């Protein structure tokens, strides 16, 4: 039954995909009206103006360009023109650095907040205030105070992926069942041991959910941050191709950003499955 469902779902997915591509192809195929022009003049103009070609690329243009990128993902033609693979590596590196720092700070802090109702009440207004701030709002402040654009980008990742993890950790820790804590108390388990052997395993699924939300946010933020600071990374690539009004490359970057985001999310989902337990 379930294999049957999977099969039907994948057929449906495929049909949706084909319909989408067909609609896209038809939408971008039509040729606009073209004014007759002097050949001397036409030589100086782009394809949109001379042949009426749609400014929006069709699916086959995109596929051809993807193939070109795949053939040579790691080229390096100077500081402002690197292959898609190198750009992705830079972005993932930045995200990982900022994210790991955030993990190091958020989980211990979340523990403290979760275990102490006093801290929870005291810190809550700050967290609620800082949580909804857009990453780009942090950027000018970071650039101004840190005075280094590379570190600023990492800082922005850090500050944005901090809150969901902290809140989830605090929630997970405070929601550990009373019975388990009472058992630990009757056995006279010391606080540190209680934290690691009782609370941590019990709160792990919630903590990992927080980490999963955070990695998604970190990946969202990096594109915006790199568009601002420039230099390297997938965000810079999008910006640079936008400069050239190359919609093909912008679409490809969108696909790649989506793909990498999905992979990061799936990786954490897999870890989350390892720590879940039946109640």
């Amino acid at each position, binding site marked *: 039954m379930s294999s049957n469902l999977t099969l039907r779902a994948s057929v449906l997915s495929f049909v949706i995909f084909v319909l989408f591509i067909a609609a896209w192809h038809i939408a971008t195929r039509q040729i606009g009206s073209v*004014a007759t*022009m*002097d050949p*001397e*003049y036409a*030589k*100086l*103009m*782009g394809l*949109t*103006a001379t042949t009426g070609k749609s*400014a929006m690329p069709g699916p086959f243009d995109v596929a051809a360009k993807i193939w070109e990128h795949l053939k040579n993902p790691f080229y390096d*033609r*100077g*500081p*402002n*023109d690197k292959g898609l693979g190198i750009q992705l590596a830079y972005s993932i590196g930045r995200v990982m650095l900022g994210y790991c720092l955030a993990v190091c700070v958020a989980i211990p802090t979340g523990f403290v907040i979760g275990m102490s109702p006093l801290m929870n009440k005291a810190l809550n207004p700050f967290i609620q205030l800082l949580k909804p701030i857009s990453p780009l709002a942090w950027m000018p402040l970071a*650039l*101004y105070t840190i*005075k*280094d*654009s590379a570190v600023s980008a990492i800082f922005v990742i850090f500050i944005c992926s901090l809150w969901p993890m902290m809140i989830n950790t605090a929630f997970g820790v405070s929601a550990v069942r009373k019975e388990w804590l009472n058992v630990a108390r009757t056995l006279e388990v010391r606080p540190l041991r209680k934290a690691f052997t009782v609370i941590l395993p019990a709160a792990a699924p919630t903590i990992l959910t927080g980490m999963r939300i955070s990695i998604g946010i970190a990946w969202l933020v990096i594109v915006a941050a790199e*568009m*601002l*600071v*420039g*230099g390297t990374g997938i965000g*810079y690539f999008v*910006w*640079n*191709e*936008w*400069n*050239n*009004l190359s919609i093909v490359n912008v679409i490809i970057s969108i696909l790649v950003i989506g793909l990498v985001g999905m992979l990061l999310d799936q990786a954490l989902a897999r870890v989350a499955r390892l720590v879940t337990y039946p109640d």
Partner: protein
Amino acid sequence: MFKNPFDYRNRLSRGCPCGQHESQTAHDAELRAHAVETAANVEKTYENLVAQAVLRQIFPVDAHRRAFLQCLGGSTAAAAIASVFPLATATEVFAQSGALEKKDLKVGFIPITCATPIIMAAPLGFYSKHGLNVEVNKAAGWAVIRDKTINKEYDAAHMLSPMPLAITMGVGANAIPYTMPAVENINGQAITLAMKHKDKRDPKQWKGFKLAVPFDYSMHNYLLRYYLAENGIDPDTDVQIRAVPPPEMVANLRAENIDGFLAPDPVNQRAVYDGVGFIHMLSKQIWDRHPCCGFAASQEFVKQNPNTYAALLKAIIDATAYATKPENRKEIAEAIAPANYLNQPVTVVEQVLTGTFADGLGNVIKAADRIDFDPFPYESFAVWILSQMKRWGQIKGDVDYQKIAKQVYLATDTTKFMKEAGLTPPASTTKSFSIMGKTFDPTKPDDYIASFAIKRT
């Protein structure tokens, strides 16, 4: 120029951006060969300059020198003098008057043709000729380039010529003493309007337009305001002027978010190339030979690294001198169009640099001075810019025009280095000019401001 496609021996490949070479490597090799050649030429200039000085010392009377050369022959004479005076070493010492404090530099730029000298100096080898290893870095916008130079991530940068003045005075940023030892380009901007306005060629019909300029502290802003005000349109109340980064301008024009812009190239030409807009007028029709962008560095950098600064400035002056020659423009267009620099189709950059361009209305226009390159930072340019900042209320109160102009636009340094590079700098560091028929006297900026009907003072 192009290979015969009907000849079986010719391989037709599109391996390089210009289409004349088989591969990117062959293309680069030729560019490099060319760069070495130009480098050798400049070396020759220095050599001659030094030899001249030496000969003048040996033979204070020119007739004696000529007699000496006549009886020995030029090359023998050179060898004879070289045996007692190390000409080669002297040339080297002259060309590089002191040890460089810093060899690896980062220079920031915005991908527009105004940055041509700064960009092309990298692929065409002008920096390396002066012993510098410069990495040119593309920045996302004017605010970013300002912050990155203030943070010292960039040692020097491409800036709009009002920016160093604004930074020095602390307008729109913290006050940091800044310098602009060289203008990069003159002219080279244009007003582009959306295709739907092709019948509204008179600015009096522009009421309610949304117009874009690249930055608040830009020549574009001041020129557009000047042009509108001269035509009786108040730039603050009759139209809306917004700052939009150049890369976003064409996209915004296509989306009809704006009606037009006064922007740096290649943005204008790109709008034409994509059939989105037409070129209403070139900026040289407002003020011929107006400055636009400059090469800027903090005063701290200039003071701490005098030799590096000198070498950098010489490289820029050399590059500017090379760029001003019309016969080099095609080669430059090919060198700076790839993704590493401007990231634009070669034909767009070529139309800007050669001045033979499509105007978007079906005409091919030839204006060889559409953009030109002249490094000399006249102090009167700075005074005019300050007068406009005051006119539009960006700065308030009394301004010591001449002092700020002298402090930021290092015209004396430029004069010195231009002489050393074998160029003729202008005799005076100020000049009077006329904008739309109205003469500007740099000694009386306040009277000039008072003479306008539309102003915010």
